[in-house]
């Protein structure tokens, strides 16, 4: 469990994180969303004791990170996959961390296998690693102590589809076993598949802290896709009934009328319908809609 209480961070006159409070609970995957500069990374760094809050506090299992007795066996963190000494092999990077955490050396081979890094790759110096390989190494480091809490900043950035699926399954499985998983990502489609719960940040403030489905439902516009052979007549009927109709996806996208209403209107006018699909907004659309007022506010403040 991660608890953040009225966390604030100022750099000079700029307030990057502003009175933030939320709780990340065990047993589910919590996504951390926000545009660039919203304060996500600073928040994660304060949770991990790397940056000192101006005020407020962040606790892991009820204690500040700096007071954890076995930090690597309590929390696995991936902040910046590129933060590996280029002259050191992946194996030695992990072996050093295992030593620091009092973790048996055999875990190194286990996490390498778990993240799909072969022994030959692990023996190579990290200088030549692709971003995807670095992400796998960062993930291996986070999993090394088999921690109850995982904190991952953009873990799928640069991964191929296999890697993305691996991360998704791994995180879902750890949450299912009662782990606390907190991850940020810019890939909304991926977040929609992985997260159960969302914490959304804008300009350092909390915009939402709710289950994924609720965030989407509360902020979405329902759109219905309808396809019919007599397209033009159908459009007139729907427009007359108050629907906003636009062309898209090989049919009409109707806003303001739900799917049953569209079907009944078509039947009442004797129109054949080939497809009728209610389409909830994707997280990406919801997120874009949520972030817009914040971006406007920022532009206003700058001028």
């Amino acid at each position, binding site marked *: 469990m991660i608890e953040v209480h009225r966390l604030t961070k100022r750099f000079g006159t700029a307030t990057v994180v502003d009175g933030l409070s939320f709780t990340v609970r065990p047993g589910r995957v919590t996504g951390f969303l926000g545009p660039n500069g919203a304060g996500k990374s600073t928040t994660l*760094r304060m949770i991990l*004791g790397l940056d000192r809050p101006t005020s407020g506090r962040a606790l892991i299992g009820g204690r500040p990170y*700096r007071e*954890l007795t076995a930090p690597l066996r309590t929390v696995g*963190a991936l902040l910046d996959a590129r*933060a590996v000494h280029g002259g*050191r092999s992946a194996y*030695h990077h992990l072996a050093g961390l295992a030593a620091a955490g009092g973790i048996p050396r055999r875990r190194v081979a286990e996490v390498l296998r778990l993240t799909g890094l072969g022994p030959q790759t692990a023996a190579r110096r990290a200088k030549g690693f692709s971003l995807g390989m670095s992400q796998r190494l960062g993930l291996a480091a986070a999993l090394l102590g088999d921690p109850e809490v995982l904190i991952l900043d953009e873990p799928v950035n640069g991964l191929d589809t296999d890697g993305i699926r691996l991360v998704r399954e791994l995180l879902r499985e750890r949450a299912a076993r009662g782990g606390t998983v907190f991850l940020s990502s810019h890939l909304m489609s991926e977040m929609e598949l992985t997260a159960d719960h969302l914490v959304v940040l804008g300009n350092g403030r909390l915009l939402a802290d709710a289950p994924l489905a609720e965030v989407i439902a509360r902020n979405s516009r329902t759109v219905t896709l309808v396809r019919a052979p007599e397209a033009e007549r159908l459009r007139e009927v729907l427009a007359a009934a108050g629907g906003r109709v636009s062309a898209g996806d090989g049919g009409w996208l109707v806003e303001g009328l739900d799917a049953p209403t569209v079907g009944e209107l078509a039947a009442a006018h004797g129109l054949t319908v080939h497809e009728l699909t209610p389409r909830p907004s994707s997280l990406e659309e919801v997120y874009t809609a949520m972030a817009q007022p914040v971006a406007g506010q920022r532009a206003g403040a700058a001028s």
Partner: protein
Amino acid sequence: MSARVFGWALAHEWLKFRSVRSTVWTWAVMAVLPVPGAAFVAATGSLQPEDTVLGGALTLAVPALALAAVTGVLVISGEYGSGTIATTLTAVPRRGTVLAAKVALVAGVLFLAALASATCAYLVGDAMLAEDRPQGEPWPALLGVAALFPVAGLLGLAVGTLLRHAAGALTTVVALLLLPSMLGPLFGPAERWVAGASPTAALEKLTQSADADAQAVGSLGAWPSLALVAGYTLLALGGAATALRRRDV
């Protein structure tokens, strides 16, 4: 800090030290350099008549001392340069423990290497140099020389922690090694303190080299000079510990 956590942190530092070529090579060259140096000086007879065996044999201890300081810088600047400092501090969140582990590592590897290296160089010089040359006092001077290397390394570690950038830290410690004896004469009566304030000056006095006159390296004795250098290194380490604790990573 618990002994167990300190042990883990020290094991981490040792693994990091030995798994990167730059630190291992700098350290290895530092350790080896004085020995062939002694053989070269003896074979070419390139010594002042009044030079002692000890001073002649340890001629190349001066550049080796600079490499010790570089080793100390690399132990911390490698972390800031690559960004692993954040990883290290999440693995060992008590920052005083991290710095203490680095101090123990740097002091340990440099003391052992320097003691072996200076002793070998002296034995080589002793075997090859002419009988009629003044011997110098090898004991306890060789222990002092071996103690000076960790002091130089820790000075590098402290400056590297304070400045965080390899280039700036390397320039600063090399300046600390060379400048006091160059600038000393400008300070008039304070010269004995200024010129004696560099690790190099302490080294030349300990080795009883012919270069170790009051003009060049101040008129402090060898051991007070070592104590002076060790004293300000300790202060610099205290500053580094405070900075590391207070700063955001």
